[in-house]
């Protein structure tokens, strides 16, 4: 999230963002095996829509949870993702524990997310996703 390599940019007129890279690297940093779900076998991240499809596949060891459950899991140190499969590239963000000193989340409602995208920062769901763009689904790993 604070990695400047993940800052949004414009290149040749097109917006470039890094949510799927960030999701992959955060998962890897927590010790999760990303291969086949968030990345290929070489650790190269899939695009967000592919990651979301993989998270939704029960065979991959993840399951859907409610927003409250996702927040509770994150508070316990368990990796969880907020996702929205999109007609464009979709969006994915990791859920962030509540109460981290210094955090001033943008928005006011929904779980707290470590957003990497058009802006990078700590934000509630309401500042990251709109219901107008489709279902917002949270995933957590099977225990």
């Amino acid at each position, binding site marked *: 999230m604070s990695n*400047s390599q993940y800052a949004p940019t*414009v290149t*040749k007129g097109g917006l470039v963002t890094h949510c*799927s890279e960030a999701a992959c690297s955060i998962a890897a940093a927590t010790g999760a095996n990303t291969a086949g779900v968030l990345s290929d076998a070489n650790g190269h991240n899939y695009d967000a829509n592919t990651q979301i499809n993989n998270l939704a596949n029960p065979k991959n060891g993840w399951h859907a949870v409610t927003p409250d459950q996702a927040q509770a899991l994150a508070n316990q140190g368990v990796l969880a993702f907020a996702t929205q499969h999109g007609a464009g590239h979709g969006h994915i963000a990791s859920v962030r524990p509540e109460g981290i000193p210094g955090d001033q989340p943008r928005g006011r409602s929904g779980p707290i997310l470590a957003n990497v995208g058009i*802006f990078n920062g700590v934000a509630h769901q309401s500042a990251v996703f*709109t219901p107008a763009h489709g279902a917002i689904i949270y995933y957590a790993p099977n225990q």
Partner: protein
Amino acid sequence: MRRISKVFPSFILFATLACWVLPHGAYGESSNHDTWKNFSAAQKRYALFGFIDCHRLLFPHANASMYNADERVYGEVDKLAADNGDTPIGRLILDAMRKTPAAAPDNHAEHGGVDDGMLWRGLIEREKEAYVQGVFWCAEVAPAMTVSLSEKSAGAAVKALDDWYVVADDDWKDPRSNARVDVPVAVAMQRTGILSIRPAKKP
């Protein structure tokens, strides 16, 4: 601006200085290099995003590949500003984008999207003001357009946009929230009357 003038030869006949209603305060001074210098990296980013969005609106047939915004561009603007103290920041931004080669393709990133209501909801106040300032800087260097800004300051424009996007509706219950979320910020600035663009009158 020669390149743009070639793209719009009809406007050359009507070219005149942009009519510019200067907003007050630090954000509105037309060549305020200090404002740029004092911006954080994130503010510079969103100032460039605003500049680009405004420029696309003013010059829809311009070559999109000229638009770049990353740390190298901010750095180039910094350098140009140091050597060209009297040149409007908007002109320096255009020069910096042209001088900076486009970044190599990033196959691991997401490509696409627009600066719309979701961006607006996600930005914090100072980033929003920087975005608006980028629009102001762009409007300032549009040679064949009459660009007027009804708001007196970037802060007032931010407030008007917050109201229009219904940012306070954090639970997305107001039907206007979803109806407007996909509207680009630069277009919202037109719809709110903050930004008015029309071909300049013949001198």
